């Protein structure tokens, strides 16, 4: 492998403009994350203290190994939904280390709305459990939720069943689960602790039952206290629904660490490794490389040089299909096959990507997709040369590789290009996005043109002839809708990625991610590699 050669001029005016732009985006992201994680009304914090409860962040501090990385996932969930009343969808999830084992943590945040579930909360749990299943990560459920937000029950109910089914699948796959019950687990939610291998309950606070005291009274007339009906002592000594009763949250979390400490340590997947080294080129320079407009182009090799160990990259087919950059590198000592876009995908670029993926799949090398793709090339010349056929090959191979896939939306990720590069719906093990990134079915200008034309035609058919101003108004509406819904904050709010990442944090994020995905064995499906 050779050290890449950088051609970035850090003294150029463009570099300085881009840098200022991207530093502002990084600050905005930092502020948004801080607000979502920590900013709560004093009243909410007082209420937790009155109930003798810790904040979810304090619980995590007690659970996780000190000094070990915690890769929080979907941290800005629901930031553009529900009028912002459910920061993080009132749930914290991420990959962390407990007693030396990599685990998935799923923890309710009861500081607001009693930690109620919203539809996005439900989908966030489903996604976290999917990540746990695919990557063989043990799960620690930290339960403290008032249950479903009944005003939104239909959308919650549509997804919630997955959670319990996934818990059953985790058990069958030999992946341990532990529940710590800090609050009520009522009705369906009662099954989460009950489906875990082991469950810890906090006395006087935690409860598990199919119906709480008021509902029991309404249904049968029976009057019963919470502790009698589903408290820690009853469940750990009478019903056997739970296993350990403790007096405080701190005790519960200490015990949780002990329980996890007994779990089997499993060997990681067989994958090429070497001693990690930092990139030769400073990742901080990414701020000056990423353009200030999603339409402006940049060289993806400059990004790779600031993410991979030693800026060392063995490029595959460097002179062919140059809008697709392919090659091997190491990130935190773990080998990856990288596919990065330099804009639009042509037939040659697609074919190069297809062959490269087959090579990596055969050799058991995880794939990393770095998106800056506006789609497959359109036009007569390209259709005649079968661009769709070449795109289909790329999709076919990408969908069926058995090695883990990771994706980062670095800039544009549009049209079928997003699919070809293992976008969200193609199930990469983990997918992250930079705050400057945009993703949609097509570019906003084209969409605005098309939709404006459709509406104007419809008005004319009704005999109305819209004026110039009215047409501008229609266009303004359409553009505004598009600008909102292809924005990184909107997409992350709706869980189209596993989190927004500050570009300079990409390397560390990918390091933790690779380490996590290697918990599952790489099952190779050997086949011949086609030179297409």
């Amino acid at each position, binding site marked *: 492998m*050779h*050290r890449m*050669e950088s051609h970035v001029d850090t003294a150029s005016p463009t570099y300085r403009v881009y840098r200022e732009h991207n530093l502002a985006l990084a600050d905005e992201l930092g502020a948004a994350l801080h607000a979502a994680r920590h900013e709560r009304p004093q009243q909410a914090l007082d209420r937790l203290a009155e109930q003798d409860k810790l904040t979810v962040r304090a619980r995590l501090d007690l659970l996780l190994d000190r000094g070990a990385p915690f890769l929080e996932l979907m941290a800005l969930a629901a930031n553009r939904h529900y009028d912002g009343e459910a920061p993080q969808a009132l749930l914290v999830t991420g990959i962390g280390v407990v007693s030396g084992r990599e685990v998935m943590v799923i923890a309710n945040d009861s500081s607001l709305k009693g930690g109620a579930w919203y539809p996005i909360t439900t989908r966030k749990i489903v996604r976290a459990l999917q990540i746990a299943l695919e990557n063989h990560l043990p799960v620690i459920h930290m339960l403290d939720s008032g249950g479903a937000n009944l005003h939104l029950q239909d959308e919650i109910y549509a997804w919630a069943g997955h959670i319990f089914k996934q818990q059953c699948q985790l058990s069958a796959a030999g992946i341990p689960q532990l529940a710590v019950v800090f609050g009520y687990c009522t009705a369906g939610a009662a099954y989460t602790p009950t489906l875990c291998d082991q469950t810890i309950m906090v006395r006087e606070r935690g409860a598990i039952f199919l119906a709480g005291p008021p509902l029991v009274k309404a249904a049968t007339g029976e009057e019963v206290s919470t502790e009698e009906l589903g408290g820690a002592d009853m469940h750990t000594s009478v019903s056997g629904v739970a296993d350990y009763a403790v007096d405080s949250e701190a005790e519960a979390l200490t015990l949780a660490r002990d329980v996890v400490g007994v779990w089997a340590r499993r060997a990681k997947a067989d994958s090429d490794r070497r001693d990690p080294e930092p990139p*030769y080129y400073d990742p901080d320079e990414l701020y000056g490389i990423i353009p200030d*407009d999603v*339409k*402006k*182009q940049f060289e993806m090799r400059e990004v790779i040089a600031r993410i991979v160990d*030693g800026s*060392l990259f063995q*490029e595959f087919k*460097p*002179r062919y299909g140059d809008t697709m950059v392919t090659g091997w590198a190491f990130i935190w000592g773990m080998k990856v096959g990288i596919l990065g876009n330099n*804009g*639009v995908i042509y037939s040659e670029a697609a074919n190069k990507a297809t062959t490269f993926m087959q090579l990596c799949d055969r050799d058991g090398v995880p794939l990393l997709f770095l998106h800056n793709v*506006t*789609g497959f*090339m*359109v*036009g007569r*010349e390209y259709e005649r040369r079968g661009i769709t056929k070449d795109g289909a090959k790329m999709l076919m191979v990408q969908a069926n590789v058995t090695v883990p896939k990771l994706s980062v939306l670095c800039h*544009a990720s*549009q049209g079928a290009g997003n699919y070809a590069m293992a976008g969200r719906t193609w199930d990469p093990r983990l997918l992250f996005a930079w705050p400057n990134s945009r993703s949609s079915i*097509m*570019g906003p*200008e*084209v969409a605005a043109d098309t939709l404006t034309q459709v509406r104007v035609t419809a008005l004319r058919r009704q005999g109305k002839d819209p004026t110039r101003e009215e047409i501008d108004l229609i266009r303004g509406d359409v553009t505004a809708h598009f600008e909102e819904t292809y924005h990184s904050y909107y997409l992350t709010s709706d869980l189209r990625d596993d989190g927004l990442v500050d570009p300079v944090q990409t390397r560390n994020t990918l390091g933790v991610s690779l380490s996590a995905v290697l918990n599952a064995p790489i099952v190779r499906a050997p086949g011949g590699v086609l030179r297409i």
Partner: protein
Amino acid sequence: MALEITVAGGTARAVDLARHGARATITIDGRDYAVALGPAGSGQQLTVESRSERVHVVVDHDMAWVHAFGRAWELSLIDPVERTAGAGASEDVATAPMPGTVIAVVVTAGQEVAQGEQLVVIESMKMQSEIVALRDGVVEHVHLEVGATFERGAPLVGLVPLAAGDDDADGGKG
């Protein structure tokens, strides 16, 4: 395998090494030298033909630093693939890499441009791309105006070579 190595950023030398046990033949730009290298104290003893010298070598990826003959030499290995990257890009006419629309024309006819300088900006497939000068020259003709559409391979900007030695005479700004 023949390697290309530069010393202190100078001209690249073609270097080939053939080992015969403790001795070796090194071929530099076609000329053979009998050499030997062995440990000596904290460094190594290098023998080239009849001359012997104590050397210290540090290798970091594609770079090596050699201390010999009373000073340090910086050696750089040229990647055989990167060497040819971007080669052949010296045409007189900047052409369109894909069909699209011109959204900005940065230069005018008669203007002197340096290699890598922006000529026009095009938009295609929701992307803006800068078309840059592939070599130093003078803009002969800008073929398209802002808003014009073009096919792949269409000429965008024509360049003519700089007249030798006249850069001070007329300033080159027609």
